[in-house]
């Protein structure tokens, strides 16, 4: 026991760092004990890197609070250690004492036991034991110690009570133990004495302290040797008292006793001085990053830690400061910040890009959807409707006809709905392109009203008023504007049971648009002939849908001379006046109908929304009309609004910005008037052009209506009938025909003049002009020829497309030759329709067989197409490739060529190019000249008439269609050819 304790005391090794130092430094020095001593020995400490005012340092140690407390710690720890040692020794001493007492006790017991035994043996005799003396010798003091302590031992001894021998032996053993114990006691006493001596020999606390301090100093040197830090102490006046700098630039004498500002100058010096002073005043340590730019060490950033130093009285007597060069870190940090910024920007960009990509994808998908819709739904449906219409012209009994009427009208409705949806998605997906063409707002209003009146089935008054200041002609997408008007009016009519529906067109404001760099920007459509051609085909398609609206319009346009002159004047003016006017057309469509409740107004223009389900049931419709109107108006840069009062009526108003072509801008001026006067003088109808008010009253539903198939078609026919009559009534005679011819000639010359002046980048426009030229000459031919026997304006009824003239001409030939017996039923039905609707018998003669050439290499396709054309009432010639087609064209005349695009030997595009080239120049390219064509009528005007060439393309993608149109084809039918597609396409070119 005792030994262990002693050993522990011996083994207590002093740590390298005294406890107190560790405490003072708040365990900042985390070092392994043991290894450090060696490390320090290896290190050579460079003393010169620190410059110190040692006196001051000493003062610091003795006077500053920290210094004194540190010393106190050291002293306390020393005292504690000494006390500890003394305590340990005392403890040992007391233990030994206890042991000695125990031993004595034992001895006493033994003696007593012995005595008892002797009493037993000797009876009354009182023997004197030898041990008695021993007892006396050892005895007195322990006797005083209580017996109770040894009581247990006595009992054990009692238990072991045995023989005298046993007791003797036991006494001897105990004796031995006692001796040992005495020996140990003596040893301990010796040790205690030694320790006491040692204590005196040990060094004084000051020596120890200075040693520790030295060690700390060495250690600090070791640490600071390579650290890029400056450590300093400055007094109250911020004069350096101590500085440690690993990279000293200045000598000791330059620094000690001076302030920062005295030592060096430059950016940041003052700041650091201020900072130190602040710390000094506030008495709280602080950190700050300061960028220096001094002559001494250039531009560097230091992280400075300043800590106030207090005297024992609690006054600040200076600051300790520690500066670390963090220039690299700052640069890195700045770089990081920059990089982070860049990353953020990049990410934002990426996000934006992704969004754009997403949008583009969506648009693409929408476009695809559109294409699918158009092919998948519209074509079969047109098939259904047109078949039903054909059926309507066969012999049917009353009930069948009624059923068929229902079928056709529902079919028309669905078709309209699909067209609406397509329009809507076209606008939404950005596919919808607007045309920019001249049109006459008055006529548009009039025609729309006329159309509405014609299909009106209730007693309503339709009125229209166009203000005088509205230009005669404006530029815009007439088709769309007409669509908007028609939609609004039919809407108005639908919800109006009595009273009137009207259109009010006036001018909101006008402004000039400077357009010094020409028309190219403003009329993008004109830049691209293909898009225009497409648009044309679209137009004519929709005209076939809408029941020949277009043709009527053209009829009323009256006098191609006018168009021609205006075109010519426009062409010349494009150069003269680089300024264009924009007017804001204000159009009200009002009715005296059921009105719209206020709460329904917000959702009015939303898709598929109707005022209420009740309305939907009662009035039908899809709720798309107004949405389309709004989108179209907005697409054109306008605005569509509505005001309404329940049971009083509604007014839909749209504002449309439209450009005004130059001449018409000053229609009130004498200039404008005179430019038109030569035409106006000849045609009374021009009065109508300027007249801005129209009134249509519905008469009772009458005459031929019940005789025809579709109600829509019927009414349109009726309409066109009345219009043409009115034209005839206006006295368009043979004379006017020749007049218009003269006008044409003038126009042509003017056009060509204009064309010459037009510079290169307007060559597209030039092409268009020439097309118009073509139209004009064609129509001229027709009117001359036909005037001779009819003198009716109907002969010029379909001049939208160039080849028309030739068809008409051909027809009249055929009619002269013979009345072909057994004409196809389609034709007959058209005849019937025409006859019933306008009561003329000469009209259908124009509809007889045109000559069609089919160019196709696939036998099956030929068979199918042939059969379809047969059903449409056409007999065709067939050749199998482009070259054969050219030979065929060289041999005979064809009005229309259906041309496969992809063919062996020569493809459709090339063949078309050759044919077009021939039409233009009058001779064939030598490579395609057929040697054995005896009747090659080269050069004759008749055969050089432009043939209609319709492409049949397998992949109806935009590119290949554009290719077709670019190569001079007039239209296209996508493959596989269906009856409806073929019919629709042919209808564009043959008015059947």
């Amino acid at each position: 026991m005792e030994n262990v304790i002693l050993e522990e005391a011996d083994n207590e090794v002093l740590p390298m760092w005294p406890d107190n130092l560790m405490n003072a430094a708040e365990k900042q020095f985390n070092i392994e004990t043991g290894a450090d001593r060696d490390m320090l020995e290896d290190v050579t400490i460079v003393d010169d890197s620190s410059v110190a005012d040692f006196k001051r340092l000493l003062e610091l140690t003795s006077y500053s609070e920290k210094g004194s407390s540190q010393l106190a710690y050291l002293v306390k720890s020393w005292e504690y250690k000494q006390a500890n040692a003394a305590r340990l020794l005392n403890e040992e001493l007391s233990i030994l004492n206890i042991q000695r007492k125990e031993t004595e006790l034992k001895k006493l017991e033994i003696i007593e036991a012995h005595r008892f035994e002797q009493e037993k043996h000797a009876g009354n005799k009182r023997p004197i034991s030898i041990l008695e003396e021993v007892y006396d010798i050892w005895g007195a003091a322990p006797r005083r110690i209580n017996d109770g302590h040894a009581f247990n031992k006595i009992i054990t001894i009692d238990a072991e009570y045995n023989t005298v021998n046993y007791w003797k032996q036991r006494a001897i053993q105990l004796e031995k133990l006692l001796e040992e114990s005495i020996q140990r006691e003596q040893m301990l006493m010796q040790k205690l004495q030694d320790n006491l001596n040692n204590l005196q020999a040990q060094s004084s606390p000051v020596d120890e302290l200075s040693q520790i301090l030295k060690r700390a100093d060495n250690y600090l040197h070791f640490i600071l040797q390579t650290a890029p830090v400056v450590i300093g102490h400055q007094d109250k006046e911020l004069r350096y008292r101590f500085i440690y700098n690993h990279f000293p630039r200045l000598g000791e004498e330059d620094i000690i006793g001076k302030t920062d500002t005295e030592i060096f100058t430059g950016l940041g010096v003052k700041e650091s001085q201020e900072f130190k002073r602040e710390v000094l005043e506030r008495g709280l340590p602080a950190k700050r990053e300061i960028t220096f730019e001094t002559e001494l060490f250039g531009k560097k950033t230091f992280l400075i830690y300043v800590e106030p130093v207090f005297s024992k009285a609690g006054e600040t007597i200076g600051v300790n400061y520690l500066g670390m060069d963090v220039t690299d870190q700052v640069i890195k940090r700045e770089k990081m910040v920059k990089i982070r910024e860049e990353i953020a920007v990049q990410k934002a960009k990426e996000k934006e890009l992704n969004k754009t990509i997403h949008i583009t994808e969506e648009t693409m998908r929408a476009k695809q959807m559109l294409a699918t819709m158009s092919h998948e739904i519209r074509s079969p449906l047109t098939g259904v409707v047109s078949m039903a219409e054909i059926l309507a012209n066969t012999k049917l009994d009353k009930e069948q006809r009624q059923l068929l009427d229902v079928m056709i009208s529902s079919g028309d409705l669905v078709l309209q709905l699909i067209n609406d949806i397509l329009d809507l998605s076209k606008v939404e997906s950005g596919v919808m392109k607007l045309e920019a063409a001249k049109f006459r707002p008055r006529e548009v209003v009039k025609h729309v009203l006329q159309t509405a009146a014609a299909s009106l089935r209730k007693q309503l008054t339709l009125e229209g008023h166009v203000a005088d200041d509205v230009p005669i002609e404006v530029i815009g997408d007439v088709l769309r504007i007409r669509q908007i008007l028609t939609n609004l009016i039919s809407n108005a009519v639908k919800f109006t049971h009595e009273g009137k529906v009207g259109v009010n067109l006036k001018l909101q404001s006008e402004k000039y648009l400077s357009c010094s760099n020409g028309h190219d920007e403003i009329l993008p459509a004109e830049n691209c002939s293909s898009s225009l051609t497409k648009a044309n085909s679209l137009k004519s398609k929709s005209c076939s849908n809408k029941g020949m609206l277009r043709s009527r319009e053209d009829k009323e346009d009256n006098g191609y001379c006018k168009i021609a002159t205006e075109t010519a004047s426009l062409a010349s003016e494009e150069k003269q006046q680089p300024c264009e006017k924009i007017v804001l057309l204000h159009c009200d469509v009002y009715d005296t109908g059921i009105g719209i409740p206020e709460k329904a107004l917000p959702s009015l223009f939303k898709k598929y929304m109707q005022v209420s389900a009740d309305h939907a049931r009662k009035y039908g419709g899809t709720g798309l009309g107004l949405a389309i109107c709004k989108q179209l108006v907005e697409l054109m840069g306008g605005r569509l609004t509505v005001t309404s009062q329940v049971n009083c009526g509604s007014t839909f108003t749209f504002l449309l910005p439209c450009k005004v072509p130059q001449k018409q801008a000053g229609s009130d001026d004498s200039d404008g008037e005179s430019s038109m006067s030569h035409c106006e003088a000849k045609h009374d109808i021009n009065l109508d052009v300027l007249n801005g008010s129209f009134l249509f009253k519905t008469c009772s539903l009458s005459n031929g209506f019940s005789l025809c198939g579709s109600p829509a078609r019927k009414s349109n026919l009726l309409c066109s009938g009345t219009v043409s009559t009115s034209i005839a009534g206006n006295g368009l005679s043979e004379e006017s025909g020749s007049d218009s011819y003269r006008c044409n000639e003038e126009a042509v010359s003017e056009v060509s003049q204009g064309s010459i002046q037009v510079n290169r980048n307007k060559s597209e426009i030039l092409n268009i002009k020439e097309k118009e030229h073509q139209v004009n000459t064609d129509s001229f031919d027709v009117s001359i020829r036909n005037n001779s026997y009819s003198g009716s304006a109907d002969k010029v009824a379909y001049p939208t497309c160039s080849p028309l003239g030739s068809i008409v001409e051909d027809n009249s030939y055929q009619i002269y030759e013979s009345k072909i017996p057994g004409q196809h039923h389609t034709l007959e039905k058209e005849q019937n329709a025409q006859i019933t609707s306008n009561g003329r018998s000469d009209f259908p003669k124009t509809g007889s067989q045109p000559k069609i050439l089919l160019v196709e290499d696939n036998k099956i396709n030929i068979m199918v197409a042939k059969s379809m054309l047969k059903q449409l009432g056409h007999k065709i010639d067939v050749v199998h490739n482009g070259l054969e087609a050219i030979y065929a064209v060289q041999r005979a005349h064809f009005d229309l060529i259906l041309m496969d695009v992809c063919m062996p030997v020569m493809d459709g595009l090339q063949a078309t190019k050759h044919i077009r080239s021939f039409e233009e120049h009058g001779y064939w390219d030598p490579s395609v000249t057929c040697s054995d064509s005896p009747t090659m009528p080269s050069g004759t005007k008749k055969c050089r008439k432009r043939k209609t060439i319709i492409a049949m393309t397998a992949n109806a993608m935009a590119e290949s269609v554009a290719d077709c149109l670019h190569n001079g084809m007039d239209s296209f039918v996508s493959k596989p050819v269906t009856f409806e597609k073929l019919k629709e396409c042919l209808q564009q070119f043959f008015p059947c």
Partner: protein
Amino acid sequence: MDVRQLQRQWIDLISALFREGFLDAQFTQLQQLQDESNPDFVVEVVTLFFEDSERLLNDLCNVLSQQVVDFNRVDAHVHQLKGSSASIGAQRVKNVCISFRNCCEERNLEGCFGCLQQVKQEYTLVKGKLEALFGLEQQIVAAGGSLPMM
């Protein structure tokens, strides 16, 4: 067999053909083109298609088995086949032709072989089905009935 039953079979068969995509609307077009003046139009066209396709498929096999494959010729043949199949509404044949042409464009010989196999298979399938259909039609006509309207 009862005419009505035959007619029902015919309708089942043809609707299955449409439903399973063997035929598309173009075939309806053919049916519409058939009338009193041209009572066997569909059969004629389809027979022509069979002849033509077999010739084309043979040619395709030949061209593709050459040492150096002339992809332009392959493409031309496939174009023909695509055109004819599209014309009669043999949709599945047409669809394979489309991927066949893509393979051609990529000069992917392996793909071409695959497509050839596929197109042969589709052709055989549709041929069998159509022949069955025509067979039924003949039976119906022989039994004195008329083809039901679709």
